[in-house]
């Protein structure tokens, strides 16, 4: 199993806390509001705990992690 990481663009407001938390997975997208962008949507299961923490730290609750 692997993890699929996504950001809901309707919820993201560009806080960029995910970029600070896991900079190899999230980046500031090329957009005016600084909305987040997922660099590596597919991640190994071993990173679940780290990514769960980053997702729970999103002020807008815009990040989802799914097992695929």
């Amino acid at each position, binding site marked *: 199993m692997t993890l699929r990481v996504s950001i809901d663009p309707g919820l993201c407001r560009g*806080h960029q806390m995910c970029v600070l938390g896991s900079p190899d997975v999230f980046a500031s997208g090329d957009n*005016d509001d600084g909305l987040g962008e997922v660099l590596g949507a597919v991640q190994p299961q071993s990173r679940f705990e780290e990514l769960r923490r980053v997702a*729970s730290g999103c002020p807008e609750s815009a990040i989802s992690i799914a097992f695929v």
Partner: protein
Amino acid sequence: MVMPQELPTARCPVAFDHNSPEHTARGPLEVYRELRNSTPVAWSESNGGYWVVTSYAEVSEVLRDAVTYTSGAATDDAGNYSGGIFVPAERGLVPMIPTEVDNPQWEDFRRLLAPRFSPTAVWDYRPMIAELTTHYVDQVIEAGECDLAVDIAAAIPASSVLQLLGIDVAEWATYSEPFHNALGYPPGSPEYAEAVTGLQGIVERIRELIARRRRDPGADLISHVASAEIGGAPIDDEAAMSVVYTLFSGGVDTTTTLLANAFAYLSRHPEAREFLVSDLSRLPVATEEFMRMFTPVQALARTVRKPAVLGGQVLSPGERVLLSYASANRDEATFPRADECVMDRMPNKHVSWGLGLHRCLGSHLARTQVELILSEVLTRMPDFSIDEQRSRQYPNLGIVNGWVTMPATFTPGRRLSTRGAA
């Protein structure tokens, strides 16, 4: 739905007024802690009656729901101001756009401004901010003493905002002082009265600048705003003034407050200072923790637009709701060790930038300013020590957690810039 009139006793008022001298004297964090633990959504009869929300869950619920809770402001025919982001509404001296407009208009204004404050745009401002930072540190570096709240924390953010607006940075104090004093001194004080006069003067100067830039536009932000189209028509004079006023207001007091509080904390906590000095790449994460701990903007308001239930209380249309960001940021239910400054705290979903629709437009600019200024200070005057006896916070901490003065000493150093005095 249960209507408020059916629950006449449900609204047991608490004694709370964030504008009162008692609030500042007791310490806002203590006042908020008590409310958060007893009545996280409480009704106060002060300021004409308003709700005060102190728990993280409810503060974020309101911020994310701009349909039920509006930021909108209105002025009636008699010139009375209502709604907006302040309690009482009269504390909002000039209507603020886009802060105090909701959709559909908000979208137009945000689209106008966001490209100038995006991470990409702010990246291009870095050399300008770095140069101003070096310049202002140069002014004090040989003396070995300065007022950190004024000479650094106030001067540099205000000057960089003036630079973006296309105004001579030497005028930074003229523009920033009225904003500091209008928020830092209580209504009724001579300082407040003077600040209000000062703000009226700034409004007039903004009007003149807009007229001038319409005739002779440049690359600056005022020209950008003055030439905007809103809803398919050229922006009107009052809206343009309001947008520029809001950019000032957002730019001169907030970053300043964060920096001053960071200086105070680092002066008092050598281990935290060492943690940063030994690795300046820790600054961005630490900055977010400073934002949480010191919450520059302590509390702002909304107005109930539709009947709502919040934290078990029934709220009615027209009622004002004060959201305590300061309190939400210390809510133990969300932040473990909430009263501790954990320099590498991550995740850190503080609400100091706001949440949802009206989240701080200038956050990327503010972060860049804080990073560049703190790294310059920690590099060039790493042993600064503040004079605790002579340092003074704002007499009124109800809205902004600011500092009036913060005298400090440090080992003198050499000037770096060849540029003359501004």
